């Protein structure tokens, strides 16, 4: 076995060097003597402290070992009782030996009488003086052979790949090998790569060093000379010592002040989460949550990923058919019901009428009404309800407009004109189902109109402009609504708002001036109160700055809203629109009731309208304006992109270049994909483009990006052949991307997903869905372990995934060396950045052996942005058969056993996507 000596300890050298420098000057001597005495003191303290700790430990251990002793004797007493039942052979032999030794000579007769049945159990004890070979002294008892397992290293099952954690790296770490076959000892190390930097690692100052430093400085000051000798004493550089001293001084000063502060901090910590604002709270979310896998602490993509904000946002979620049942005792509905005031504002009614009546022809009023309906959420809604609106026809519209007037009159002061509001009308108003339906129809009709508007080119740009700010924060929508209702001259407020945003838009988009002015004309009469108006976005921001006292007053009995609650509310408004029930239930549960939220929502909106004249917010406004412009620009580009998108089908140029790359790839490994953060269609700066990968759904870029992989349109072929562009590109289909790809789930008891295509399920999502075969682990017929198939499968059937740790190529080279020594490697080249290592983490397929004539093949497949290795049946495989695949060693790396039989066979197929590396018969 190994031998390795090493010299240790270096204390004497330190001393001698100190001694050496002592002679330099008298002053130096003085300094050194000070240092020396401090040092001695430290050393003495140290030995005393060790002594004390040893003693403490000894005391403790004494108790422990006494307790253990008690346990071992307790056993004896309890056992003597049952020893009557069956005599313990060990005890018996012990006694025999003792008797024999004492000359009592355990006679045969004695033993026969006491326990005749034991006699069959072999010989009695044998006494050994010295130098008698033991081997033959006692008849040995045979331990029947048990078949040992083929060797393996303990491994952890992974159902998906994991990225290597830092501490697993073998790079830069020394490894000592020994050769088991070489008999005793053989330690070798890869000297070429040995970088032992750890000695040079920056050692942090220990307490005692600080102490010496402080004491010396106190007594002698801190001249260069002192620093020099201290540095020598610590075996550090003088500047290091100086830097440390400065830190110490600072700390000392800080200590006095912070002592009290610390306590406060601790006290606050308990509640710190609630005191933070949402952004701060979300910080950890941003760092820990993987937006690709939708899990926290993702092992595949890691923490602190680059945040990619999508250029396109999801529309705010609207409950498909919101029930009118109050969400709880504090639901605004029930509260409102009790507080309902039958106050009708005729102007509102008129408003609605105005909106509903003109169903054709685009007039100024119409634009106005559209504005009123406050584009963002309405439009979003329109999107989500497209099918609905499509099915509803003109009849409905007219119907709705007819019946609309009635219930509309009864509405309370808070709701109208916008979609969520119309719903409220239905609910709180007369509470008639009919009215609700009517309201929905109104909605539909409005959506329809909007769509038409969108379609008409002239207005289009304007609309989008007007919508923009609201679109980003749907809440603005509600603000506007509120303005509608709460201010008596609702028009005045409303139109400025839209005018404002229009104007902003004009700063970015000159081309629309014409339309804009048109509209301005249309609503020119409203503009008198214009100046102080803020854009809807600004309103939102202001909200945060609003004095809490105001809220207190307005919300009456309720606690003030904390920053985080406000933040949550905003997010909720973004997600759920104006549904206070949903916001309260999902985001503010336990903090605020639905009624609170409802009040807050309305009150903050009305406040905005009141505050319009308040100039104090100009600063904020300016700030947010700047922000908005940046955002808005991207918005516009996106929109433009969307128009274009229609032109690019999957047959477009972009697609071809992808395919080309695929065919060109040949020997090159695939490229690792990293989502780009482009906020606009990807240009030359795009990280994906530069890297040579397609953009995926995780990229920030809009869907119209030319570099996006467009998925497939397959239906009948079920994506099972190279006809399918996904399949051809070694990708799995993605229901988010492909047009017709879907699978049914379960046995249909939970409903069937909306089927796409013509009822043909996609067959190219098996890795994604983990539709794998049962693989069994067993003794291989060839060597070591092997993987076996439980059920028979057909050709090209997906068997399972080869999972493992994702490691860099550098790491893999280093590990490979270690594995090669053990002749056991589970490395698998994945792409240009990563190698899969299944040595310590993987699944049973890692045990599939190599064969030149295999029944399986491995393929690297892109699944939702990640490369994964799938193992597929190369032919029909019967149940219970062992699985083999060709490891496809790079010719020069193949171990001898893999090279012999297939020298010609595998090389031909070198271009195949997979190339496993140095793998052993495990």
């Amino acid at each position: 076995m190994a031998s390795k000596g090493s010299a240790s300890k270096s204390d004497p050298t330190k001393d001698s060097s100190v001694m050496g420098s002592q002679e330099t000057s008298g002053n130096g001597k003085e300094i050194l003597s000070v240092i020396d005495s401090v040092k001695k003191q430290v050393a003495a303290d140290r030995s005393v402290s060790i002594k004390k700790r040893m003693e403490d430990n000894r005391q403790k251990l004494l108790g422990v070992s006494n307790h253990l002793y008690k346990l071992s004797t307790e056993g004896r007493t309890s056992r003597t009782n049952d020893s009557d039942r069956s005599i313990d052979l060990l005890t018996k032999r012990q006694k025999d030996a003792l008797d024999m030794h004492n000359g009592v000579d355990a006679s045969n007769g004695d033993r026969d009488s006491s326990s005749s049945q034991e006699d069959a159990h072999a010989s009695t004890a044998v006494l050994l003086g010295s130098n008698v070979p033991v081997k033959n002294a006692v008849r040995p008892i045979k331990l029947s052979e048990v078949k040992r397992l083929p060797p393996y290293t303990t491994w952890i099952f992974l159902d998906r790949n994991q990225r290597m954690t830092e501490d697993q790296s073998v790079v830069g770490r020394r490894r000592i090998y020994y050769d088991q076959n070489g008999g005793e000892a053989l330690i070798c190390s890869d000297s070429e790569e040995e970088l032992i930097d750890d000695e040079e690692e920056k050692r942090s100052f220990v307490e005692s060093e600080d102490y010496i430093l402080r004491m010396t400085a106190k007594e002698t000051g801190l001249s260069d000379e002192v620093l020099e000798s201290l540095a020598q004493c610590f075996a550090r550089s003088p500047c290091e010592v100086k830097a440390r001293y400065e830190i110490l001084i600072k700390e000392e000063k800080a200590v006095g002040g912070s002592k009290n502060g610390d306590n406060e901090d601790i006290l606050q910590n308990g509640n710190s989460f609630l005191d933070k604002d949402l952004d701060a709270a979300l910080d950890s979310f941003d760092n820990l949550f993987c937006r690709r896998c939708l899990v926290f602490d993702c092992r595949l993509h890691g923490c602190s990923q680059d945040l990619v904000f999508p250029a396109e946002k999801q529309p705010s979620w609207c409950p498909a058919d919101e029930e009118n049942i109050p969400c709880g005792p504090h639901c605004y509905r029930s509260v409102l019901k009790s507080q309902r005031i039958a106050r009708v504002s005729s102007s509102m009614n008129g408003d609605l009428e105005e909106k509903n009546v003109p169903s054709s022809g685009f007039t100024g009023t119409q634009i106005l009404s559209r504005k009123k309906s406050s584009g963002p959420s309405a439009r979003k809604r329109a999107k989500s309800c497209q099918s609905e609106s499509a099915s509803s026809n003109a009849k409905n519209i007219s119907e709705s407009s007819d019946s609309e007037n009635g219930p509309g009159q009864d509405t309370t002061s808070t709701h109208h004109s916008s979609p969520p509001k119309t719903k409220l009308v239905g609910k709180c108003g007369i509470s008639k189902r009919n009215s609700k339906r009517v309201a929905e129809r109104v909605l539909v009709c409005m959506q329809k109109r909007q769509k038409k508007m969108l379609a008409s080119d002239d207005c289009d740009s304007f609309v989008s402009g007007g919508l923009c700010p609201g679109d980003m924060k749907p809440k603005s929508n509600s603000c506007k609504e509120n303005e509608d209702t709460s201010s008596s001259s609702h028009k005045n407020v409303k139109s400025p708002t839209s005018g404002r945003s229009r104007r902003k838009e004009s700063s970015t988009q000159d081309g629309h001036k014409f339309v804009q002015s048109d509209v301005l004309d249309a609503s020119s009469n409203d503009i008198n109160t214009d100046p102080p108006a803020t854009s809807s976005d600004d309103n939102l921001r202001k909200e945060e700055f609003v004095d809490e006292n105001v809220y207190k007053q307005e919300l009456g009995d309720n606690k003030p809203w904390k920053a985080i609650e406000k933040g949550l509310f905003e997010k909720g408004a973004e997600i759920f629109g104006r549904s206070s029930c949903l916001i309260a239930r999902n985001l503010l549960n336990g903090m605020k009731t639905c009624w609170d939220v409802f009040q807050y929502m309305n009150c903050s909106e009305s406040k905005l309208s009141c505050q319009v004249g308040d100039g104090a917010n100009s600063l904020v406004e300016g700030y947010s304006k700047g922000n908005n412009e940046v955002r808005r620009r991207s918005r516009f580009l996106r929109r433009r992109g969307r128009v274009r998108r229609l032109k690019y089908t999957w047959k477009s140029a972009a697609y071809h270049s992808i395919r080309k790359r695929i065919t060109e790839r040949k020997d090159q490994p695939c490229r690792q994909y990293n989502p780009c953060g482009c906020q606009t269609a990807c240009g030359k700066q795009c990280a994906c483009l530069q890297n040579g990968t397609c953009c995926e759904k995780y990229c920030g870029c809009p869907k119209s990006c030319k570099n996006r992989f467009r998925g497939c349109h397959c239906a009948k072929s079920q994506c099972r052949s190279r006809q399918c562009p996904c399949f051809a590109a070694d990708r799995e289909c993605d229901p988010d991307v492909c047009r017709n790809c879907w699978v049914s789930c379960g046995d249909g008891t939970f409903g069937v997903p909306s089927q796409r295509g013509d009822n043909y399920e996609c067959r190219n999502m098996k890795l994604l869905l983990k539709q794998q075969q049962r693989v069994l682990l067993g003794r291989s017929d060839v060597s070591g372990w092997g993987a076996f198939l439980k059920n028979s499968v057909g050709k090209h059937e997906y068997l399972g995934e080869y999972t493992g740790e994702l490691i860099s190529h550098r790491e893999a080279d280093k590990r490979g060396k270690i594995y090669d020594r053990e002749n056991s490697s589970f490395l698998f080249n994945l792409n240009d950045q990563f190698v899969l290592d299944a040595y310590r983490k993987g699944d049973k397929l890692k045990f599939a052996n190599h064969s030149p004539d295999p029944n399986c093949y491995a393929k690297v497949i892109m699944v939702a942005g990640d490369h994964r290795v799938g193992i597929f049946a190369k032919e029909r495989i019967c149940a219970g058969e062992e699985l083999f695949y060709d490891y496809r060693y790079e010719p020069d790396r193949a171990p001898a056993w893999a090279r012999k039989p297939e020298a010609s066979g595998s090389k031909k197929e070198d271009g195949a996507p997979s190339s496993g590396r140095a793998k052993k018969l495990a």
Partner: protein
Amino acid sequence: MAKFALGSEPVVGSLALSKKRDYRVTNRLQEGKRPLYAVVFNFIDSRYFNVFATVGGNRVTVYQCLEGGVIAVLQSYIDEDKDESFYTVSWACNIDGTPFIVAGGINGLIRVIDAGSEKIHKSFVGHGDSVNEIRTQPLKPSLVVSASKDESVRLWNVHTGICILIFSGAGGHRNEVLSVDFHPSDIYRIASCGMDNTVKIWSMKEFWTYVEKSFTWTDLPSKFPTKYVQFPVFIASVHSNYVDCNRWLGDFILSKSVDNEIVLWEPKMKDQSPGEGSVDILQKYPVPECDIWFIKFSCDFHYNAAAIGNREGKIFVWELQSSPPVLIAKLSHAQSKSPIRQTAVSFDGSIILSCCEDGTIWRWDAVATS
């Protein structure tokens, strides 16, 4: 080994003999030709404090120390597989108190022998490679823990034959595990060390329900929900080479590498962040010519003394708990030239046994000094 900063140096024991105690060879046995890798006294059951077991090759042998240097062979077991080479042995017992001998070796099998009926009780199949050390939980002597070349440490219940826990995985050892030990009082805690040069401290506190479950398990052992403990609570890089033996000394840890010394250190864990912490090296016990790996030391029942052999067949007996450490005795004999793989110190420290590479067992008895 890294230099020590001022004020954190360990206290190094002096090799000057204290003459506190003197030992003489009283017996020498040639067990066989194959090297003996382990010798261990039974500290589990006070009836058998004078009984010890050795392993070497495919044999497990049980002896008794009698007065006057006499050693009696009580039992001998032989594995039918001639290729088996046992590396380690430990005493354990069934819950009814039946003495068990647990041995493991190159085949990766753990043999549980019922010494009370002289029959094999169970064979544990599970380790993927050789078993380097087996230790018994003194507080619950039917729990044993094994360290293996397959990079894992496993906790077994010898009573039911269940593999309860596997200490391995993401935070586990990166090479063979050579040694493992139970904390003497904290029943949840074990320390393991190995060829990755680290010492890892593990806690099974969160998994204790499984340990309890293992005692009442009546189904097949293979159906037991064996758990992986993937993350140690502490990882110490005390040595820069293979760490081949570690033992708890109270809350401190004694460990040795191939640097001619045993090191005593205190793991200072941070409660908030498991796995992190610092090591305070307190004392060192020099052992000259002890620079090959797989040399293990042993302590008496009360941890007063530790005995360790070296490459040249000499034994150093250190007083463990004094500061600075005191060398109690240095045992040497003209005919003892072969590396001593393992020693065993009797309950009170009066007998020291050593087993050697050449297949001999030496018995040293303390001589009363006037």
